[in-house]
């Protein structure tokens, strides 16, 4: 009997587990499908329809294969931090985390105290294996993060404002007092970038091999590091700023200005692509989510805002200062202010960020730079007395791809990757707000329908009516005059639409006349036709 029951239970369970697996796969497939499939309903061309259907099938298959590979072949699982009972995740201290995790992970928590040469700024290579540090007083160094050994350090004896790795750990650029320089791993100066002037911030665009710099005079420059040519040089015209961040999704460089605006730039246009007013006061920090849809800005008006970059709308406004912001690979947002580091998390997946972890440094330390280490649950902190590193579970992508960024790369693999990256180097024209537009057809602009036109006119009239009039001096503020002014405004708004309408009608009548004449006479004789007395 017992066996029979078991069998029954098995048969009952089996389909449900199969279903579970299928639904799980479908969920995972969504990521790999890269959006909805094309709607082929309206297509009249049967041949094209068939071809496209086959293509869609192929996409589905490849997505399924990728989802299966993810399910069965990925070796590691992501980190997490869960509170039990009355605990709150943001009350958990780094010390308690260190006690719970394995030794090699707890070794990733450390403070390096170098009070003479700070404040420090940091940068990681794309694989997270190497870290470059730059002290304000001229201290540069490269650290191997796996065995925590210092590869090279050097003292340049002048102000260092920023350091950034180029395409791999062999090269890094440092913005120094007068010029910025490119060094190799051994600390040899390779290039002096005189054209850039006194640079405040450096950013490297990996896919394009462009080094973007922002200098004291508010000039944005792009230099191609492979050929050495200047890809673009623009005056922002919005004053001095040191807030600059590349959107990794599309390669657009964003600057935060003292007027509260954020501008987005590409190397092929001298005007910004986007200019948005984000804050009432100066913008103090910027960060981009790797999916490209989410931007975080912090202003001196004590606000941190999250923006949807598809609609350029605020999603969420959080109170608080932040000198520096950074998004992790898994979408955690780190804010640093004074000696406090706060990490926010999007709990429900609805882009509603709330407190996840906090970490307060020793009083008096000023956090200058926060940067998540790629593929690790580690947050690097550059501050006024050195640099530190803390554990933030769930920050990094647990599975790396050997061909994208490999923390355990051998020198041979690095060389091969360099060649491949150079072959795939993107031209600067491919930097645009929506990079998926490449290879698509430009949509045909349709003529607005009659209703749309009318609605447009109505909206314009309403706007004109709703316009607030300034209070004028005595005598000019009479109600009669105000009414007159409003009527004038309405007629002024209507005028271009009416003119356009008249023009169109005229064109139409002229065409009609032509065709009616054409029917009567062959073309060769039309020139002899009597011209009608035209107005």
């Amino acid at each position, binding site marked *: 009997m017992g066996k029979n029951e078991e069998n029954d239970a098995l048969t009952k369970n089996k389909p449900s587990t199969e279903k579970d697996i299928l639904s799980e796969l479908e969920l995972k497939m969504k990521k790999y499908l890269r959006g909805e499939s094309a709607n082929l309903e309206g297509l009249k061309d049967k041949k094209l329809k068939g071809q496209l259907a086959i293509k869609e099938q192929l996409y589905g298959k490849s997505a399924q294969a990728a989802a299966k590979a993810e399910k069965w072949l990925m070796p590691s699982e992501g980190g997490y931090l869960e509170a039990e009972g009355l605990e709150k995740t943001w009350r958990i201290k780094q010390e308690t985390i260190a006690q719970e*995790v394995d030794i090699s992970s707890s070794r990733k928590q450390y403070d390096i105290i170098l009070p003479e040469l700070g404040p420090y700024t940091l940068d990681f290579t794309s694989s997270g294996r190497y870290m470059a540090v730059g002290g304000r007083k001229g201290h540069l160094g490269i650290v191997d993060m796996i065995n925590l050994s210092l590869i090279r350090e050097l003292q340049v004896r002048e102000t260092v404002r920023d350091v950034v790795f180029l395409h791999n750990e062999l090269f890094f650029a440092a913005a120094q007092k007068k010029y910025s320089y490119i060094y190799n791993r051994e600390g040899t100066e390779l290039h002096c970038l005189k054209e850039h002037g006194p640079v405040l911030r450096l950013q490297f665009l990996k896919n394009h091999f462009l080094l973007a710099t922002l200098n004291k005079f508010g000039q944005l420059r792009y230099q191609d590091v492979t050929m050495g040519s200047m890809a673009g040089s623009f005056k922002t015209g919005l004053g001095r700023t040191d807030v600059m961040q590349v959107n990794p999704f*599309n390669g657009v460089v964003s600057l935060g200005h003292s007027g509260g605006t954020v501008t987005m730039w590409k190397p092929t246009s001298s005007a910004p692509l986007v200019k948005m007013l984000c804050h009432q006061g100066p913008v103090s920090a910027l960060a981009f989510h790797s999916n490209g849809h989410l931007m975080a800005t912090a202003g001196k008006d004590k606000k941190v805002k999250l923006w949807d970059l598809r609609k350029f709308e605020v999603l969420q406004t959080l109170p608080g200062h932040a000198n520096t912001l950074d998004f992790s690979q898994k979408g955690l947002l780190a804010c640093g202010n004074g000696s406090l580091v706060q990490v926010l998390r999007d709990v429900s997946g609805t882009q509603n960020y709330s407190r996840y972890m906090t970490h307060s440094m020793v009083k008096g330390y000023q956090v200058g730079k926060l940067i998540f280490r790629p*593929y690790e649950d580690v947050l690097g902190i550059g501050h006024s007395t050195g640099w530190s590193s803390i554990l933030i579970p769930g920050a990094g*992508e647990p599975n*790396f791809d050997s061909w994208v960024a490999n923390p*355990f790369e*051998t020198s041979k693999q690095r060389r091969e990757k360099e060649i491949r990256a150079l072959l*795939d180097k993107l031209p600067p024209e491919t930097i645009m707000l929506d990079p998926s537009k490449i*290879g698509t057809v430009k949509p045909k602009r349709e003529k607005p329908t009659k209703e749309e036109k009318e609605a447009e006119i109505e909206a314009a009239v309403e706007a004109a009516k709703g316009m607030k009039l300034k209070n004028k001096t005595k005598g000019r503020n009479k109600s009669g005059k105000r009414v007159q002014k409003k009527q004038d405004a309405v007629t002024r708004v209507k005028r271009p639409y009416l003119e356009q309408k008249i023009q169109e009608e005229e064109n139409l009548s002229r065409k009609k006349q032509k065709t009616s004449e054409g029917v009567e006479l062959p*073309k060769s004789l039309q020139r002899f036709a009597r011209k009608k007395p035209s107005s």
Partner: protein
Amino acid sequence: MKVKVISRSVDEFTRERSQDLQRVFRNYDPGLRPQEKAVEYVRALNAVKLDKIFARPFIGALDGHIDAISCMAKNPSQLKGIFSGSMDGDIRLWDLASRQTVCQFPGHQGAVRGLAASTDGRILVSCGTDACIRLWNVPITSLMESDDSTKSTVEPASVYVWKNAFWGVDHQWDGELFATVGAQVDIWNHNRSQPINSFEWGTDTVISVRFNPGEPNLLATSASDRSINLYDLRMASPVRKMIMMTKTNSICWNPMEPINFTAANEDGNCYSYDTRKLDEAKCVHKDHVSAVMDIDYSPTGREFVTGSYDRTVRLFQYNGGHSKEIYHTKRMQRVFCVKFSGDGSYVISGSDDTNLRIWKAKASEQLGVILPRERKKHDYHEAVKKRYKHLPEVNRITRHRHLPRPIFKASALMRVMADAKRRKEDKRKAHSAPGSITTQPLRRRRIIKEVE
């Protein structure tokens, strides 16, 4: 509190011994690869440029004849054998792999005009202007012999003398009949010295003949009265005749769709016809600037090669209006005959300068054994090229071909002439009574009439 952080031990992610392979981990998440489409586009562009760099279609010239090559025939049973006949009456069997003459047949008194091999590859039929048909036993070549530099010579198996000079010959597929053309169309048997059947339609000379590969009793001929004729051996009289404005030099059936054939025309175009609908060409293949002399289909039926009097060889898609490839060298003169190799990967051309030339059918194809990784890479390149072929830069690079100066100039001139003609027609149409002037598409325009 539950906590876990990512922790990787170096041992797990690196190889144990230096002899081991490097460990590879994959994560296909699109989030890790920003700007995928731009990267793919750049790869497509690079692939197209690489294609240009590797486009070295010329493999070699087969030197040996002492007069212009007039005709060639494939050996259907052997991949690397090809027969060629020249204007001085010489017939040779070539080994394409070693690029050497395997056998030299004594040949004819005048020019050899036609060559055809039987489907089993045992018998070669040749005919010439000396009004003789000669049947040859094809020597079976072995490796030893092909290495041997001394060329063996053979005697003809049989010689049939007839009344008029011949212009062409073709052997039936899977049968023992062959057809010769000249003053009329004659059907012969291997064993008889007289034709078993003769067809005549009009008085002009017939210049080319091709048996249908699907229906062995059907054959198409072209004559110097600008006509294309279809014959059925089971009937006493010709089936159909179609007259064009210019002469057709050669005809080839599509081996995969044997109802269709393509005619190489004197006006520099090739016309693809459906046998059932001869009043309109299925497709007009333009690009040659002078008469097309010969045409041959690839065994896949998807492309064909043409040789022209303008000293070039072109490759066309079976349904493409313009050529996808042009082959030329400074030394190659008027091309009189072209053939696709039996596996569709090479093209052989015979020209006025006494040489046969071997070309690759795909100009940038990599020859030799290809490793699986290389094969994968080629496939990937093909896929991205296909995906981005419509983008202007990719399209421009794929379409561009360097042309010899005379051909470049001639094609520009022809374009000007065509434009002027079209303009004139448009004007004439505009200034005439509506409906009085009708223009026909090019597919119909060159056809005069169809006779049954």
